[in-house]
C-alpha cells in the first residue's frame, strides 16, 4: 500500500496533515458511543426478560402450546369441519334432519335376528 504520491507531493503532505488533524477523537464522542452501547445492552436485557414474564400466565402458556394464533386458527377450522361432517353424516344416515322414518328401524330387526340365531 503506497501512501506517497510523487506527482503531487503537496497533496501527500495535505493528506498527512489531515491524518494528524483527526488523529484524536473527542472524548465526548467516545462517551456518547459508550453510552449507546450501554443502552443497547440494557434494552436487550429487557427484551430477553419480557418473554419469561409472558410465559407465567396460563393463557399465554396455552396459546404457546397450541402454536400461537396460527395454531389456534387451524384448530378452530378443524373443529368446525369436524362438527359439520358429524352433523351432515348423522342427518344423511339416520334422517334426523327430515323427521320421517329412518334406516334405524330397518337395522333393528337384523340385529334381533342375529341374536335369535345365536340363541
Amino acid at each position, binding site marked *: *500500500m503506497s*501512501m506517497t*504520491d510523487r*506527482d*503531487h*507531493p*503537496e*497533496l*501527500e*503532505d*495535505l*493528506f498527512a*496533515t*489531515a*491524518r*494528524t*488533524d*483527526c*488523529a*484524536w*477523537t*473527542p472524548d*465526548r*464522542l*467516545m462517551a*456518547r*458511543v*459508550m453510552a*449507546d*452501547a*450501554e443502552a*443497547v*445492552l440494557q434494552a*436487550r*436485557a429487557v427484551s430477553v426478560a419480557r418473554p419469561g414474564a409472558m410465559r407465567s400466565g396460563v393463557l399465554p402458556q396455552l396459546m404457546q402450546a397450541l402454536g400461537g394464533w396460527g395454531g389456534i386458527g387451524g384448530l378452530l377450522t378443524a373443529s368446525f369441519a369436524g362438527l359439520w361432517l358429524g352433523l351432515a353424516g348423522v342427518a344423511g344416515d339416520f334422517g334426523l334432519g327430515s323427521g320421517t322414518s329412518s334406516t334405524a328401524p330397518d337395522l333393528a330387526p337384523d340385529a334381533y335376528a342375529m341374536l335369535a340365531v345365536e340363541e
Partner: protein
Amino acid sequence: MQEKPPRNPQAQPASLAQAPDETLLVLFGLGDREAARILTARLTPRAFRVALRMLGGDRAEAEDIAQEAMLRLWRQAADWRQGEARVTTWLYRVTMNLATDRLRMRRGVALDQIAEPEDGHPSVLAQMIAADRVAALDQALAALPERQRQAVVLRHIEGLSNPEIAVILGVGVEAVESLTSRGKRLLAAVLAGRKEELGYVDDRP
C-alpha cells in the same frame, strides 16, 4: 464503569484488548461491556475520521455520524453473521452512507463553513497552518464527485487497500484505482492555485 466478572476466566482484559474486532463484537452481543469499551476505542476514531473528511471538516456533524454508525454496530452485534464481512469494512460502509445522506440533505450550504480549531494541540501557529491546509483539503475534497471523494478518503486518509475499498464501495478493484487517480488529479488541479497561500512554495526543501 461498573466492573463485571469475566465470562470466561481465561479471557482477561489484557488478552481481550488483542482480540479481533469480530470476536469483541460477538462478545458484546452476549452482553460484554469490556468488549464494547475496546471496540469504542478502536473503531470510533475510524468512523469519525472518515465522516470528518467526507463532511468538509465539520466536527459536530462528523461526531453525529460516527455515533450513529457505532450505534448501528451495537444494534447489529447480536445478529452479527460471523465470517461474512470484516467489522471495519461494515463500519466504513455504514459511515460512508450516513455521510452521503447528510451531504445530500445539506446540499446548498456554503462550503467555506469550516469548524473552529480546538485548543490543546501543538503550537498555535503550527495549528493554524495545519488547520488552513486541512480546510483547503476539505474544500477541495468537497469539489470531487462523491465516489471519487470516498475512494480518496479511504485510500489516503484511512490507508486502506484497494480490495478493501472495493468491498466498502461495492465496486471492482479497477474501478477503485480509477476513482482514486481521477480524484487525486482533480484535487491537485483544484489546489494548484492555492499552493503559495498554503505555504507549499517556500516550505519545499
